[in-house]
Structures are given as C-alpha cells and as structure tokens.
C-alpha cells in the first residue's frame, strides 16, 4: 500500500490538534505504521496551524510534500487556500465554511479572499463545504466543530464507524463524549 497523507489545517485554538490525535489513534489501532507532525509554540497564539498525518506499511518522513495529500481537512476557508498546493491531483478538499480574519486583514494591510469557493474550484480541487459550527450546535456543543469535520473526513477514509467511535471514546473526557459522538455522526452522514 502506498503511504496515505492527510493534512488538518486551521487557526490556533480551533481544535485541529485533537482531531489529529483521534485520526492517529484510529490509524494506529488498524495496525498501520504512521507519523504525525504538529508544530507547537508561537503558532498556537491564533496563527496558522497544521497537523500532518501519514500512514502505510512503512512511513519515513513525518511531513507531507506539496501535491501529495489525499485529503486536506481545513477548519477555515483561508487556511484551505493556503494548503491547497499540498493536495494531490484527485485529492479531496474538505472545508469548514467559516471565515476567521487574520490580523493583517483586520488592520487593512491585506484583503481576505472573498471567493474562496470559486478559487478552490478554479484550481481543480474536488471541494466539499460543510457548516461545521451549525452542525456542532445541533450536536449539542459549538466547540465540537473538530468532531464534525472529522466525521466529514471519515467519509473518505477506509475506517469503520466502530473504529472511529472507539478512538473518540478514548480521546476526550467523559462529559463531552455524547456531544462529540453526535457531532462526529452529523459530519459523517
């Protein structure tokens, strides 16, 4: 089997790290070799963050080269545009339909690309948008956007609902479990 690559991109504080951990747990439980790379530090203070996940029989590099990602799971539209070049031809771009203005846009030094959907489509990417916040609210917690998006990603991966739910159970505290599972299921259908 070739190595599979997924990027989870977003804004510091959006919960990308937990999403990456759950995905990694699912992969590890399935018996694959894997590497997960995430950068801590400065980037967490509201900056761009990305978790890179790679799995297969044997994985060497912890990072995904441009043009190699089977899927990019973007928690924010501008981040989808930023990581678009990492998508392989035929890969899936899965985007949370949310806009978070970075400081240069707030100060007027830069302009937020209004037409993210059109830009992504024009670049030839197979894009799915999802209103993660709305679905998360319906699941009982606006904070569970990361699980909605993980559900969305699960549609394009080989792992079974039981495998995902097992990993979700192990990942978080008991009190969020019901909302997390509900959010995941709403994203997965």
């Amino acid at each position, binding site marked *: 089997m070739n190595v599979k690559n997924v990027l989870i991109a977003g*804004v*510091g504080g959006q919960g990308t790290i937990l999403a990456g951990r759950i995905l*990694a*747990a699912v992969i*590890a439980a399935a018996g694959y*070799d*894997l*590497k*997960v*790379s*995430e*950068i*801590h*530090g*400065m*980037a*967490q*203070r*509201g*900056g*761009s963050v990305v978790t890179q996940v790679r799995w297969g029989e044997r*994985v*060497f*590099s*912890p*990072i995904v*080269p*441009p*043009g*190699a990602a089977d899927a990019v799971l973007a928690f924010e539209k*501008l*981040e989808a*545009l*930023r990581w*678009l*070049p*990492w*998508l*392989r*031809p035929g890969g899936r771009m899965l985007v949370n339909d949310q806009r978070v*203005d*970075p*400081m*240069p*846009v*707030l*100060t007027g*030094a*830069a*302009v*937020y*690309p209004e037409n993210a959907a059109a*830009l*992504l489509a*024009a*670049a*030839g*990417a197979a894009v799915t948008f999802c209103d993660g916040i709305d679905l998360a609210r319906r699941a009982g917690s606006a904070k569970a956007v990361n699980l909605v998006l993980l559900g969305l990603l699960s549609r394009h991966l080989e792992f079974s609902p039981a495998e995902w739910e097992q990993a979700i159970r192990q990942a978080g505290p008991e009190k969020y479990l019901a909302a997390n599972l509900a959010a995941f299921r709403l994203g997965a259908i």
Partner: protein
Amino acid sequence: MRQLMTGNEAIARGAWEAGVRVATAYPGTPSTEITENAARYPEIYAEWSPNEKVALEVGLGASIAGGRALVAMKHVGVNVAADPLFTAAYTGVTGGLVLVSADDPGMHSSQNEQDNRHLGRAAKIPILEPADSQEAKDFTVAAFSLSEEFDTPVMLRITTRAAHSRSLVQLGAREERPLPPYSKDARKYVMIPAYARLRHTAVEARLAALRELAETTPLNRVEWGDKSIGIVTGGVAYQYVKEALPGASVLKLGLSFPLPRRKITEFAQTVAQLYVVEELEDFWETYLRAWGLPVRGKEIFPRTGELQPETVAAALAADTGRPSRLPTSPPPAVAGAEPPARPPVLCPGCPHRGLFYVLRKMRLIVAGDIGCYTLGCLEPLNSIDTTICMGASIGAAIGMEKTRGEEFARRLVAVIGDSTFIHSGVTGLIDAVYNNAQTTLLILDNRTTGMTGHQDNPATGRTLRGEWRERQEIDLARLCRAVGVNRVTTVDPFEMELMEETLRTELAAAEPSVVISRRKCALIDREAARPPLYVDQAECTGCFRCMRLGCPCLSRREQKAAISDQCVACGLCAQVCAAGAIKTTGEAQ
C-alpha cells in the same frame, strides 16, 4: 506493546527506563514536554529550574552524587548553560548525565536557528541524533550508558520535527540503578587549574576512544542499496532521503560527533557518487572535505531553514539526473495573490495588550524581551524596538541610555516577562542600580510562563510537581527592592489611564524604577472571562480607535466596529472608545 509518542514523550520514557532519578529544565519550544512528561513518573524528581544554567548545574550535582540525570532545553538554552557544560565536559560524571538540546531549524518559535552540533563539539562531548520517536527513546537509553562508560556528559540533539512528531515506540521496563556509595574525588570535581589540566588530557583521550567507538557502534549504520549513489545523513534528514531515493546506499549517523573516519571513507570509496544531506550547517560535510572525499552537499541543499522532503528530493533529482520519487506535477494553485499570512496574535483578554497600547500611545522607545509579549512588535501595536535574547531588554536599555543620555532615557522603557525576569533579568536590574542608570523597567507579571504553554516559575511559587508554599514564591516587588530599586509600583494593565500616569512619573524619576504590570494570563484566568461586549451600532462613529488594540475579536463591518463571540470582555476597547459605544450585554439594550 507499541505506543504512539512524540519524540519528547519518548525521551522522557527513555530516561525513565534508564533509571533516571533527576530531570531538570527551563521550558523552551521544542523541548518543554520532555520534562513535563518526565514529571509524570513518580520515580523521577523533576523541576523547572530558574534558567538553563541552573538546570544543568542541578543535573551535574545529581550525577556527582551518583544518580542519572536528564537536563533538557531548547538550543539557545545551551548558550545559557554553556559555562557549566564546558567544564562538566572536563569533570565527567558519576551517574550518567544527558543534556537534550532541542534545536529549531526553520525557527518555528525561536530567535535564531543555531546548530548545536557546533556547541557539542566545542564542549568535546559526544552527540547523538535520533530520527524518530523509537530512536529518541533508544538513543536516550544509549546516551546514559555512553555517559557512564566514557565518563562524559552526552548531548542528545533533537530538532522540532523529531520532538513534535509522533510515531510508534516499543516500550521497555525501568532498570533500577542503586546509588553507589558517595566518595569524594576532588581531582575530578574540583576544577582548579592543576586538576583541570589533568582532566583536559583525559578529555582528549576520551574523544580518541569515542572516535574508535564510532567505527563500530550500531548507532552508525550502513544500509546498502544501489552503490551508484551513497548518502551520508542523520536525524530527520535521513527520513527525507529514504523518501526521495529509497534505493540508494545510506550511511546513517546516529552518533553525530565524533565521526567514524574509516567507516565514512570506506563508504565513500564504495559508492560512485557521494552526498551529505544534513539540516542547517555543513557540520559533517566539512569533515568529509577535510579528508579529501569527493562529496556534494551544501552546494545543492539549503543551509538555512528546515529541510523539506521535496527540497531534498528535487536537489538529488537535479544533481543525479534520476527522476524524483516525490510528486513532480505542479500542485493545484490559487490563481492570483498569495493568501494573506496569519501571524500569531495576543489572545483575547491578554493583559499584555493594554500595556502595549499605552506604550504606543506614549510613543516610547521599548527595549523588548522574549515571551508572548514579543507579539507587541506586530501591527497594529507595533511598539517594540529590540528583541535579542532572554533578559537582554534591561542591558540594552542601559546601553542605550549610556550612549544617548538621560533625556533619551526619559522616553525609554525595558519590558520583560515574569519568567524571563527571573531567568536572566535580575542581573540586568542590578547593573542599572549599581551603575546609576535611570532605567524604567516594566515587569509583565502574568503569573505564568505563557509563551511555552503555561509552566509555573519561581514567581508563582508552584513547582513542576504541583507543590506550593508561600515561602517558595519569589515576591518580585521585594526582590527588586532588595537589589536596591527604591521605586517599585504594581499596576493592573487593564487600568490604562493609571498605567500611563504611572509611567510618566517613573520615566521622570532620575533613578531606576520598576513597574510591575500584574494580571493573570487570560488563558489561565478562567474566572475573568465574561459574556462578550457588543458595539451599539447607533453610537459607533466608525473612528476605529478600538482597532488599534490589535484584538482579534474586533473587526470592521460596514463602517462600524464589530465584536466576535471570542470576546472575554476585558473591557479595553470600551476604555478607548471615545463615543462610549462599546457596552456589556447587560447595559442598555
């Protein structure tokens, strides 16, 4: 059982398996989680030391007393710890002593990207470099054996990618190591010149022995493949080489220093084309060239920044004429401009924000330091003139004053965080008192070491093991008074007018003064968060003065200000709004 671990978790695990008793550190990305994880093992005494120099001294003391010790820090921390390190290299060890240097190629969160293989070599100690989490654990265990066998501190060098990537690790059991009886050995541990001369000779003999070990140790291994290309590599660069040219012959150096000359020469002579792939400096390449080996390296691989699999692949493909294994078809790209950058920002409710707003408003010259507050250098706050290394703000301010005079000093402040002040600011303040500078120092006491993820420090009094006693807490105001500062004031940075007034008074004073800007970091002060404020659209005049705070919750919506639901109601924007248009949810409506 194999477990998914970061390199840092694996190092902590390796230390535990190796029977380590003491783990010390000063936090610093990407090293911080090593000691946080070591602290979870009840058999290990773990501490946050005030700085890296003390951390290493405590580690060396543990070693002299016969226990194994792990000392961890980021690359620039080794500069701070260099003094004990260079002499610990002479004394050698009793219990194994391993210094983790976590380098940050690409400067994900650092002020430089120095390559600490140079420091390890300068100190004349062996350096091990793991390439994934399994090696991080195994090399940690190996480092302790090497340390005792060769009577030397050992450097374990990791990089951000190795430290923060997760991969599978086979766990082992802890090897309990009873303490040997303590025996005094002054010729080894008292480094007066007469004894140190003897030890220097021992250091040179040790290096020669380590060079021999390098020839045979399994830490350095050859993976024979296609002999038309041979690549000498190590650390994470090894992984990129395996992706780029899986069939090539590879000499992987796990022992980065000292190098096995015979092994490398033999490898070089067996392959047709020889490359060195290493991140940052041409550390190994320089040796190969000095030995007259025909090698290609930094003429095709970058010397700055983090290596990427695609850069390594492209350079090798271009130079060898073989197709790259990595994708070469142009990836999908957005038409037109690059997407705007998303730099980090001060969090909603951050106590540093109000302070920098005041500094900007007063148009002060600001000698800055390192911490979350360094973000005050970015627009729109843009109010920092210098950032060099931890603790440098105070010295820099004194130097500026001594160069340009007292008039200049009346417009000049130094700003430093609580953790940074304890780390290396106190001596700068002593200089201001002793050498009669009129420095105005702002200590940004947010009750935590924010930048590196909220570690406690001596000014909070809570230790890494979670203990707190009043007498363990360093009172910053008393400390400043004790070193001779007469003017010490504490101000809440949310009271911007009071802050401005205080600064005016203190800047006018012809002697050193300290203003402690004290308020808990918004991320640890959960009680402080209240429902978001809102902008009364009828009253907002669209002047956007509030936007000068650089708060990520504030934006422009159709010529009016708007507040997002991330707002924690710190109230700064309401303070600066001339129209009184920003209100709490309870008000008016």
